[in-house]
């Protein structure tokens, strides 16, 4: 009973926050109204940008790391490039597809555990050996079980991301990824079904330094991630979240054979700022992600890979990710 009162108290407070309207105080809300408010606010137990299973961050980060890999793999040539380019010096294109499965366990009282299946496809063009442009699209399906009021939700997430990057000399890459995403939620609980949706805008500039010696290739990538999320639902005032975070990714890959490569990575993420306090949930400010990846080239053009990563040292969220994909270059 005490817990129920606490929940209702929190939800009432969150409605007031969401509406941001001055007194007089509203009449006592019905259970259905409470549910609707709870459902929407529980979409944001913290800013989406602060979650370890954030799809926009995953898409931008993946695109950036892929760009760094491609730019640093360009061999040294003894050329002074000028326009127009000679015909044999054409661009290098690649197409890729990737599947991700994420399992997140939220240990907070009002948190939500989730499972995500995500597919992404993308294409890049490497021009002049040092300039990369890419476009990526991902579709994710997230099923969340919320501890609040025993409700759950399904989210269909569509994201598109554009990336531009350029390398300098043999070791430095600079670029940015940015995109737009739209999420459709269906929230199911004691008060019925509630549709909601969220629009997301992201910008992620990054800089990377790479070094290769023999079989070992290392890179350090620093990325800033800004994300704006605006959630709307019928009868509920829109909720806007802005989050800012930085990440530092250290990767080392070892070329075992001409076809096989093994990679290990450590990513440190820190939240600089984010609203994300709509229901007063605690937010982890920093965590580390440890990952490994194995890739195999069937030919010079076709590469397949599989990976696993785990978000450690996050106070509240445990996320395991497995993924697999392929890349075709031509």
């Amino acid at each position, binding site marked *: 009973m005490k817990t129920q009162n606490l929940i209702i108290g929190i939800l009432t407070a969150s409605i007031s926050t969401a509406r941001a309207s001055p007194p007089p105080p509203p009449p006592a809300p019905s259970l259905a109204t409470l549910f609707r408010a709870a459902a929407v606010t529980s979409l944001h137990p913290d800013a989406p940008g602060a979650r370890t299973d954030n799809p926009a961050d995953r898409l931008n980060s993946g695109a950036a790391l892929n760009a760094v890999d491609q730019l640093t*793999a360009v*061999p*040294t*040539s*003894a*050329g*002074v*490039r*000028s326009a127009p380019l*000679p*015909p*044999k*010096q054409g661009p*290098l294109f690649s197409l890729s597809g990737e599947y991700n499965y994420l399992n997140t366990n939220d240990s907070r009282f009002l948190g939500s555990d989730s499972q995500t299946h995500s597919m992404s496809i993308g294409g890049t063009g490497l021009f002049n050996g040092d300039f990369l442009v890419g476009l990526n699209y991902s579709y994710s399906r997230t099923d969340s079980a919320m501890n609040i009021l025993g409700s759950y939700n399904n989210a269909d997430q569509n994201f598109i991301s554009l990336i531009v990057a350029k390398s300098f*000399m*043999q070791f430095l890459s600079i670029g940015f990824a940015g995109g737009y995403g739209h999420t459709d939620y269906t929230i199911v609980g004691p008060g019925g079904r509630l549709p909601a949706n969220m629009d997301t805008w992201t910008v992620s500039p990054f800089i990377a330094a790479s070094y*290769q*010696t*023999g*079989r070992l290739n290392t890179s350090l990538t620093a990325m800033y991630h800004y994300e704006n999320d605006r959630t709307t639902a019928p009868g509920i005032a829109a909720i806007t979240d802005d989050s800012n975070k930085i990440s530092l990714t250290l990767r080392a890959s070892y*070329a*075992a*054979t*001409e076809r096989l*490569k093994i990679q290990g990575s450590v990513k440190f993420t820190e939240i600089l700022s984010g609203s994300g306090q709509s229901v007063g949930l605690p937010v982890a400010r920093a965590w580390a992600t440890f990952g490994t990846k194995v890739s195999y080239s069937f030919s*010079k053009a076709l590469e397949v890979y599989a990976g696993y990563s785990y978000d450690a040292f996050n106070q509240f969220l445990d996320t395991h990710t497995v993924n697999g994909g392929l890349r075709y270059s031509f």
Partner: protein
Amino acid sequence: MSNPCRALCAERQIFPGVTHRLLVAGLLFVLSSTDGSDASEVRSRSAVSRPAVDFHGFVNWDFRHRRKLKGWMATARVIQGTLDQWYPGRLAHTVMENGTSAALHGFLHSLPTRAESELSVVYLASHQSPEGKWDFVQRKLEPLSTIAGDSNIPGHPVRMVIVDACYAAAFRRDPVWDSAWQSSFLFAADADEETQELNFRSPQPVDLGRRYPAATAWLNQHMGKGWDGKLSFLGFVWVQTFVTSKGVPVSQDGWREFLRRCEQTAREFRQNADRRLASSVTFVALPTRGVPVRERRK
């Protein structure tokens, strides 16, 4: 920090003593600074009265504004080493590193005549534009054919000029080039393509150690532990053709056969190993007509 104008001169050994290096480097630096001076004055001579083969290299590699061409410097050492193995005790060699365009002028002008050597091998490497302009480490772009045309290169009936740069064959467009040299040429790339660096220390993108064990063994034995495994594509082609050669080329025909096989090695690499890392190595033979031997202008 390396001296912008260094030279290595040695006889019968690939790596001369430090003192010798410094002395020669100092001399060539002074000579290059005075534009047009004759670097042959400092070319050391074998204890043998007349060496059979002269190898002269001019390599721009230590760039600060572009990618460093360490692999091209290693290629100069590879060519020098193979010649030394083929003609033991009969090789004189000079490799000038990171010289100015004025130093290149002097370098070309001081190439040996027939009276000084029986075979002259010249190795030229730098960043190059599709228009045939060479980039010098001093951030100066100049057309190589113009430099060659102005250098009054001494003629030699058995001279082989190796141009190891992107768009290397672009020089053939300029008639000044052929008339300045009157030599056989080995170009590392067509006029419309780049030439790349290979890495023998990494199995990706091509496991050179597994695919070309004989060349790898030769390089490991002769390049020393300090070598980082990088070689220009032409350097790979050269050493792979060298280790698969049955005999020493002792005549012009022998050299023609060797250089034709270099072309073949490059083609096979493109077909079997990696299309993007390969470039079209092209041998252009000395015209069959008589070659006038032009003595150095005094």
